Structures are given as structure tokens and as C-alpha cells.
């Protein structure tokens, strides 16, 4: 029984957390002001207008070329060439498609609710494009605006898109469209829960809802949250596939069953609005994933690269421009990789059956994300410094974000990998005995039933 045993291990005691990473201070607002525009007007009207115009142009072009990319990816996966005729290697194909769609007639079916029918695609595309304001495309002036409830706002506005789909399906006065809309709304509402819950895990580490600050928090800690929240990332990714009605969850628009689902009656430009909304949604969910899980525009070595180009003085316009453009490039790269994975999945996996879809959502993803939140929160609480209410002192909450040493990093990596493994094991265990996923057992039960029916028929005949 010697002296007190040191249970509170504080490896950070020797090394205080570093200062927050540098963010350049110059912004093109100064450029606009220098030609005589008043301050507030420049900052709140002119510059955002310029940014929005740029972003809309870039994103809409990207959407058009995503259709091209999708066709190419599909073609390569199926050992074909894909569009090759219009332009070099088919590069002008989206343009041709767009012209075709614009020149088609805008049909309204008989018996449709005209106003709702016409408004629904606009609602869907507005909900999708409205989100672009908040996506942190890059550092410094690479973002339109950054509000304190950024992620919440993104989720909220994204949820409006459901209304567009439901109303479109209903207003078409067509059974295929209605069925597609019903499926879609049920699917979207179900998976929104898992999606939102999955985002809570990384938020524990980011400690903010602001998109830009989420990126900054990862920069500060020097860790992408996917490393400490792999389970949440997987759940989020699956959920985002379902949210964007992508294969293998494309039941609302499955061609083979419902012709095309909720937009079967639409034509021409309004039909293309739905497509724009779908692809914009893919970009945005991928952007959110990149921001929350993959470090957003940040990248190890980004500052070094900038300093090669523009020196180390963070206040110069050159530094700011180089930093912003490079960070936008990094972000675009991450988003493209995710979008590519989405397409890859589409052309690789077969479609889920409807009850399997609901099973996956309610019985797997939601419990898993709930468990993830619980375990992560507990692990976090245990790891915090004793004076901040924790136990082990592996992580410290500073005003710039979380600070953890190698021990803390290792701790969180281990805990979350263990969570991952445990969740998979437990759910497999729990769901194994459930009848609806065990097709083998189902078939056996069906055979037994048939035998029973035969037996009763025999008895009846005997009487």
C-alpha cells in the first residue's frame, strides 16, 4: 500500500496545444471596394452574387458532365465505350442532350393538378441548389457564407426535396408516379433518421455545426474524422445513397417495375430539372461527406504547397488566392472520388427489394448509428481531461478545437475500430434469427405450410 497510484495519465501536460492554423485574411471584397463600391454593399451583395453565379455555372456544368461520366463509367464497367459520337470521345454529349430536352414539349397530363404539377420540379431543384450556398468549397473566400447552424440547415433544406418528389408523384394523376412517390417518401423519411444520426458522431469531435469550422476542427486536430468514426461514415454513405435514390436503393424510380417512378409523366425541361436535382444532390451529399468526414478542403501539405507558390505572408492577395484555389482543388478532388464511388456502386450492385430496404434502414443502420453515438460519446467522455469532466486525459477541449496527442489518436482509432467490429458482430447475431432476412428459413416455412394445406385438403376429401 504505497503512495497514491497515478490513474490520471496526462501525456499532453508537457506540450500545450498549438495555435490555430493560418487562414489568409485578404478577400476579393477589398478588390471590389477598391473600385468604389461601398463596404456593406460589396461584402453582402456584390461579392456573394459573383460567387453564386460562379458556383451555379460550375455546378450546373458539373451536373451535366456527371451524366456523361455516369454513362462512361457504366460503359467501362460493362466493357463498352459509351458516348463517342458528339465531340471528341463524346465530350459534347451533355450539350446535345440539354438542347434536346429544352426543345421538347412541356406536357401536362389530363386530370393533373396543374399548379402542383408545374411547381414540384422547381421545388425539388430549388431545395437541391439552395444548399450550395453553404457548402465550404474552399478556404478563405472559397465559400459563399458560413452560418452557425450550417449542417443543420443543410439537412433541413435537403429534407424539403422530399416534398417535391411526393407532390410530383401525386400531381401526375398516374398510378406509377404515385407508387414511386409513396416509396420515395417512405424511403427518404426512413433514411433521413439514420443519416442525421450518423452525422452526430463526427459532430462530437467537431463540436460545431458550422461547415467551415468543421473543416477547421479537423485541420486543428490533424485528423480526418473518418479515422475516428468509420462506422458513422459507412452509415452516412449508405444513407446518402438511399437519400439520393441511387442504386441499390433506386426503388422510387426503378425502370423495370415503375417505368421511371415519380417523374414518369414529366417531359422536356421539367424532367431535366428532376435530373439536375438528383445529380446536384449527389454532389451535395458527397460534399457533406467530404467536409464532415474527409477533412473538407484541408490536406496535409496544403500550406507547404501554398508557401512554395506565394511565400509565407498570409496577408498578401497572392497567398490568399493561391490558398483558396488550391483548397478548392483539393475539395473537388475528394468530392469527385466519392461521386465516382457512388456510380461504381450503382453499376455493381443489384437493387434491393422493398422490405429488405426498410429492414436495412430500421434494423441495421439506425441501431448501428445509435450505438455508435452512445459508444463514441462514452469513449469521448472517458478520454477527456479530468478537469474537463473526463477521466484519462487523452484529449483536451481547447477553444480552437480538440487537441490530442498520439496516445489520444491511437485511443480513438482503437475504440472506433472496436465499435465497428462489435456493431457488425452484434447486429449479425441479432438479425440472424429474424425471419425476413433468412431466405432459407423462409423457404422452409413455406414448404411446411404447403404440406399443412395438403394435409387438410386430404382430410376434407376423406370426409
Amino acid at each position, binding site marked *: 500500500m504505497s503512495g*497514491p*497510484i497515478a*490513474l490520471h495519465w496526462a501525456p499532453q501536460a508537457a506540450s500545450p496545444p498549438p495555435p490555430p492554423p493560418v487562414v489568409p485574411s485578404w478577400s476579393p471584397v477589398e478588390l471590389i471596394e477598391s473600385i468604389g463600391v461601398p463596404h456593406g454593399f460589396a461584402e453582402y451583395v456584390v461579392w456573394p452574387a459573383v460567387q453564386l453565379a460562379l458556383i451555379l455555372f460550375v455546378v450546373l456544368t458539373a451536373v451535366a458532365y456527371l451524366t456523361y461520366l455516369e454513362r462512361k463509367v457504366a460503359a467501362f464497367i460493362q466493357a463498352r465505350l459509351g458516348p463517342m459520337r458528339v465531340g471528341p470521345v463524346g465530350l459534347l454529349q451533355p450539350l446535345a442532350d440539354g438542347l434536346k430536352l429544352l426543345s421538347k414539349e412541356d406536357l401536362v397530363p389530363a386530370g393533373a393538378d396543374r399548379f402542383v404539377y408545374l411547381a414540384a420540379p422547381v421545388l425539388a431543384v430549388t431545395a437541391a441548389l439552395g444548399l450550395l450556398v453553404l457548402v465550404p468549397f474552399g478556404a478563405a473566400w472559397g465559400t459563399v457564407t458560413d452560418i452557425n447552424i450550417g449542417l443543420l440547415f443543410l439537412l433541413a433544406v435537403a429534407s424539403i426535396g422530399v416534398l417535391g418528389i411526393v407532390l410530383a408523384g401525386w400531381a401526375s394523376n398516374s398510378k406509377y408516379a404515385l407508387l414511386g412517390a409513396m416509396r420515395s417518401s417512405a424511403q427518404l423519411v426512413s433514411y433521413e433518421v439514420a443519416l442525421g444520426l450518423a452525422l452526430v458522431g463526427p459532430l462530437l469531435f467537431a463540436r460545431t455545426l458550422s461547415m467551415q469550422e468543421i473543416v477547421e476542427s479537423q485541420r486543428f486536430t490533424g485528423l480526418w474524422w473518418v479515422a475516428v468514426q468509420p462506422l458513422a461514415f459507412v452509415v452516412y454513405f449508405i444513407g446518402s445513397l438511399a437519400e439520393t435514390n441511387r442504386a441499390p436503393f433506386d426503388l422510387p424510380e426503378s425502370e423495370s417495375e415503375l417505368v421511371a417512378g415519380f417523374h414518369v409523366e414529366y417531359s422536356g425541361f421539367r424532367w431535366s430539372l428532376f435530373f439536375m436535382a438528383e445529380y446536384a444532390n449527389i454532389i451535395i451529399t458527397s460534399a457533406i461527406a467530404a467536409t464532415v468526414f474527409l477533412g473538407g478542403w484541408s490536406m496535409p501539405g496544403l500550406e507547404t504547397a501554398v508557401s512554395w507558390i506565394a511565400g509565407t505572408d498570409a496577408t498578401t492577395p497572392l497567398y490568399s488566392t493561391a490558398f483558396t484555389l488550391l483548397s478548392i482543388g483539393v475539395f473537388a478532388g475528394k468530392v469527385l472520388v466519392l461521386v465516382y464511388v457512388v456510380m461504381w456502386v450503382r453499376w455493381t450492385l443489384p437493387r434491393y427489394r422493398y422490405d429488405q430496404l426498410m429492414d436495412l434502414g430500421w434494423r441495421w443502420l439506425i441501431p448501428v448509428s445509435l450505438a455508435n453515438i452512445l459508444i463514441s460519446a462514452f469513449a469521448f467522455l472517458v478520454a477527456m481531461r479530468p478537469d474537463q469532466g473526463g*477521466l484519462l486525459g487523452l484529449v483536451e477541449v481547447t477553444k480552437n478545437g480538440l487537441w490530442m496527442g498520439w496516445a489520444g489518436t491511437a485511443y480513438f482509432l482503437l475504440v472506433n475500430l472496436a465499435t465497428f467490429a462489435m456493431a457488425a458482430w452484434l447486429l449479425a447475431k*441479432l438479425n440472424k434469427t429474424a425471419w425476413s432476412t433468412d431466405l432459407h428459413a423462409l423457404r422452409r416455412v413455406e414448404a411446411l405450410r404447403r404440406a399443412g394445406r395438403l394435409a387438410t385438403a386430404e382430410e376434407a376429401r376423406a370426409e
Partner: protein
Amino acid sequence: MIGFAWLIPLFPLAGAIVLGTLGRRFGERAVGAIAIAAVAGSLIVSALAVAEYAGSQHHGAAVAVGDGFPASFEWIPGGAARTSADGIASAPVAGGLSIRWSYSVDALTCVMLLVVTGVGLLIHVFATAYMRGDPGFARFFAYLNLFMFSMLVLVMAANFPVLFVGWEGVGLCSYLLIGFWYERDAASDAAKKAFVANRIGDAGFLLGIFGAFAVFGSMDFETIARVIGTGDIVPDALGEWGVLSVIVLGLFVGVAGKSAQIPLFVWLPDAMQGPTPVSALIHAATMVTAGIYLMARVHGVLLAAPSAMLVIACVGAVTALVAGLAATAQDDIKKVLAYSTVSQLGLMALACGAGAFGTAIFHVMTHAFFKALLFLGAGAIIIALHHEQSLSRMGGLARRMPVVCATMCIGALAIAGVPPTSGFFSKDAMLIGVLESTVLPLPLRTALFFVGLVVAALTAYYTTRMIGMAFFARGSDHDEAHGGKLSVPATMTVPLVVLAVLSVFGGLFDVGHWLAIGTVVTHAGWMVPALATVAAVSGIGLGWWLTVVRPGAGRAISLRLGPVREAAAGAFGFDAAAGVVPVGATLSLARAAMLADVEVVDRAVNSTAAGTVSGAGGSNWTDANVVDGIVRGTGEATVSGSLVFRAMQSGRFAGTSLVLAMAVAAIVVAFGWNAAVAAFGHWFGGGQ
């Protein structure tokens, strides 16, 4: 980590809930893993908490565990609650009955925590092998985890009510586990017997608690100890029977129920109907020592009532002696161990009565090690021999189960008190504690000391007899000739080996000295150790000679002893009396009740019936003329009245809601009138 000690009971509780609700969905491996993980979690947290406690400065003092909901909260509020200005209710004012759910950790709790979780973990591991293939596998571990939860609550409780919750919880689990194989009549009868015996004890225990609250004004152990420490309460003198003595005797009735003292010990031998791991964990190592723990916990109160302590010491000594004798005559291996447990508990009660509480707890610890070891070894034998429990049909197992034999021999040496095993140190300390007691009068001290010596010799004898008959005797059904080695899985042998090591070296941790409550025993002189060693060795020698060297002589002696042996096997009539006395009393009461029923009640009923028949005739006329007239008149009046009222009951939402809104408008106008006049009166030409 003491701040997180409230987690300790929660792990097994979570395990119990998970296994109780979902357990049937998991396989046996998963169930075992969850149950063991729950206990292991408790063990880890306990170990950390104990390490921190031992390393800290508050030696001996109790440390409250945490603050806030799971650790400490207002459980049964009482008294007047005060509400502060910021809307947050503060603690109730002092003076009222306010019971908090709270834990505390002190040295005593530390010892018990380690013993309970450590031995519990080993037995859980053992049980996964023992219960393999049982249809109630998940249920068994749910109960076992629930028991761990209750036991941990019991040892960590900071006041009587919380302790009582744990006390009842372990009783419940004991009941459930004794009757685990409820389809056997014997098991369910034994469970009921244990339950009833414990109820009797609990009645006394509750009276003791109420008395303590009445006298000390609080149920917190710390407060009670403080009140006694102030000297405001005058302790009873020896031979005086004040209220303190009554409280202590009340508590001791509870102790007798839980820790199997005369006359309530009868349930413990029957409790062997439960699965063997249960016997090892609950009915040997942990639950039955709760009574000893309780006496150590409130030793301040006990020390203030020396005459009651004298009773405790005497009851303990008699229990030890009677059970020791009974153990020598048993044939069922588990019953031998059961009576041995009763006997050892008697010794511990004797030590408590003598004031040597620390040594009693010391013996609780060492006893947990070697008795759990012996029980688990017995369990291994029983499983290997396909549920054969009769000693006379065993024999020659030493070759066939070498590991079990070796570990059980170590356990037997330890319980016999052969130096230098742990049993030697703890038993020796208890004997010295009795001899040097400052509570008991001198001649009684010496007499009780010699009773203790006799019990030690008896212990050595019957343990050796059991080991000899099981492992070394020849010429039985299970001799070497009948088969080769019996396979014992590693999940069984590993706990056995660990417990064997603990049984040998457990004596090094002299917790009696560390706890320092009651008489602190110092190992000085050679007299008592020498006597104890002689007693042990002679017992062993006799046992060995009668069972292995000359088994024929042993059988002849037991034949010659005839009726005495029969009496010993039935624990000198206590077992039978437990059935006869209450049953006889109930029967005569029932006979009296029947007589009263026939003579008084039936007569009254018959005459009432006659009166009713004659009254009915008159009633009939009144009914036809008066009542029916009123009823018809009411009906007609209702029909004509309804024509008016039905118009208001349109059943429509619209009308109803309009009326509702009108009422709201009226209220708004009525309440807002003055304000409206004040603000807008000038619009209408009035007011200011």
C-alpha cells in the same frame, strides 16, 4: 476511480437485463461472454477503485461514491422540500425522513468488493463449462448476473435501506437459483424453504433497522457510527438488556437467516439442490457471508451491546459445533460442504461475538477462496461422474482426475487449517480473537476457545473423510478399473488452479489487521498456533486412517454409533423440527378454525338464509308496485326531456368548436377589458 465506483453494480445489472431479455437469442458462447464480461468489468473497476482507496490518505474512513443521478440521488424523499429562487429544488431540510440511494467505499467494502467480484468471475468462468447444454443457460447467467448486482449493492450500500435492497436481491436470486431446475420437486421445495427461512430472518432484520432509525435518527452507517462516537447514547452493560441489545438481536435474527445460524440454518443444506456453481458462489463464498459483513459494518452498535454479543458468540459456537458434527455423517458430497459452510459461518459469528470483526472478515475472505475451490472441485467431480453425488459410490478418483484431486487437496488442507495455508492464519486469528476478547467474560472465553478448537479438529476430520472417500478409497463403483482419465475442460481447471493458489497464499493479506475494527489480533506466542495445528493434524490423521487406511474400521464404528450417527446426519433434529414445529402449529390452528367454522359460521349463515327468504316476499311486492313505478316514471320523464336536450348534442365538431371559441373570446375580452380601456379608451372618447 472511486468516483466511478457506482459503475460496479451497473455492469452485472446491464448483463442481467441483456441476458434476461435477449439472452435466448444468443448462443451459449455469446451468453457466457456477456456474463463474464459484465463481471470482469466490475472486477476491473473494483480493482481500480480499491487501488485508489488503498493509495489515498483517508485510511479507514468511508468515501462517498460520486454525486448525481446514478451514484447518489434522493430515493425516497421525505420532509419538506425547499425550492430556491432559481427554480431548482434544493435538498430537503434536515429532520425529516429522507433516504438517499448512495454508495460508499471504505476498507471493509474494498475487501468485500474484491472477494465478490474476483471469486464471482472465477465461478462465472467455471459455470460456463458446468452449465453447458442446459436449456436454461441464458436464464442461469441472467440470474447469476442479477445476483452479482445485488451483492455489490449490498456491500457498497451507504445506509440500511440500500443495503436492504441488496439483501433482498441476493435472497431473491438465491431463491431463483436454488429452484433453478424448478421441474424437480426437491429443488423447488428447497427454494421455498430457503425463502421462508430468510423471510423469518428479514422480519427480525427490519425490526432492527426500525429500531436503529428510532434510536439514532438516521439509517446512514456513517451517521450511526458518528452518533455512537459522540457518546450521547449510553451503551448497555454486560447482562443488561437495553434497547441497543434489542436492536442488535433483531439484526442478528436477520444474520441468522442469511448466514445460516441456529435455528435458521436448515435451508442451507437443502439449498444444495441448486447447480453447483450456485452453491459455490452464493451458498459458500458470498451471499451467506453477508450476515458477517453486516455485523462488521455495524460493529459500533454491536460493541455497545455486549450482552447481545454474548448471545451471538454462543449461538455461533453452537452452530459451528452442531454443523461440524453433522458434516461428519453426510454421504452427499455437497451436503458435507454445506454443513461445513454452516460450521465455518458459526466460527465467524463466534469471532464477531467476541469482538474480532476484522478477523471474521479475514476468514470470510479465505473461506471464500477455499470453499469456492472445494465446491467447484465437487462440481467437476459431479459433472465428470454424470451427476453422481454420493460419496460412498465414489473412490479412487485421484488417478482419473489429477488436477481436480490436487487442487481439492490443497483446498482441504486450507480449510483444515494446516500451516502455512491461508486457513491456518485466519482460523488461528479467530481463535486468538476469542481468547483475548475484551467483551466476553473470562470462563466463557476459554470455553468458547476450546469449542473452536474442537470445531477445527472436526473440520479437518470431515474434510479429510470427504477427500479420502472421493479420491483415495478403493473398491467402489468408480474405481480405476472402470475407466481411464476423466476429461475436465480448461474452463473448469483454470478457476480451480487460481483458487488453489489463492487458498495457499491468501493468508498473506491479513485484512483483519488492515481493517482494524473491533479487537485487532496480534499473532504472538506459540501456544494457540501449536494447539490449532495439533487439532488439524489429529483430525486429518483420524480421517485418513478411518477412510483410506482402514475403511473397514470406519464402517464398523459408524455402525456401532447407529442412532447417534443418524441424529448427526439429521443435524440433531433441527432439520426435522423446522418442518414439524410450524406444521404442527398450523395444523392445530387449522383444526380450531374448522371447529369455529362449523359451529359458529355455518349456523349464522343458515339462519341468515331463512331470514332472507321471508324478507324476499315483502320485497317482491314493494318492487312490483313502488320501485317499478318510479323507474317507469323516470324513463318517461327522460324521454320527454331529451327532446329538448338532444338538439344541443349535434355530435358535430363545428358547433362544439364554435362554442369553445366563443368562450375563449369571452375570457379574452373579460380579462383584457381593463387593459384595453387603459390603452385605447381615448379612441372611444373616455378614460385618459
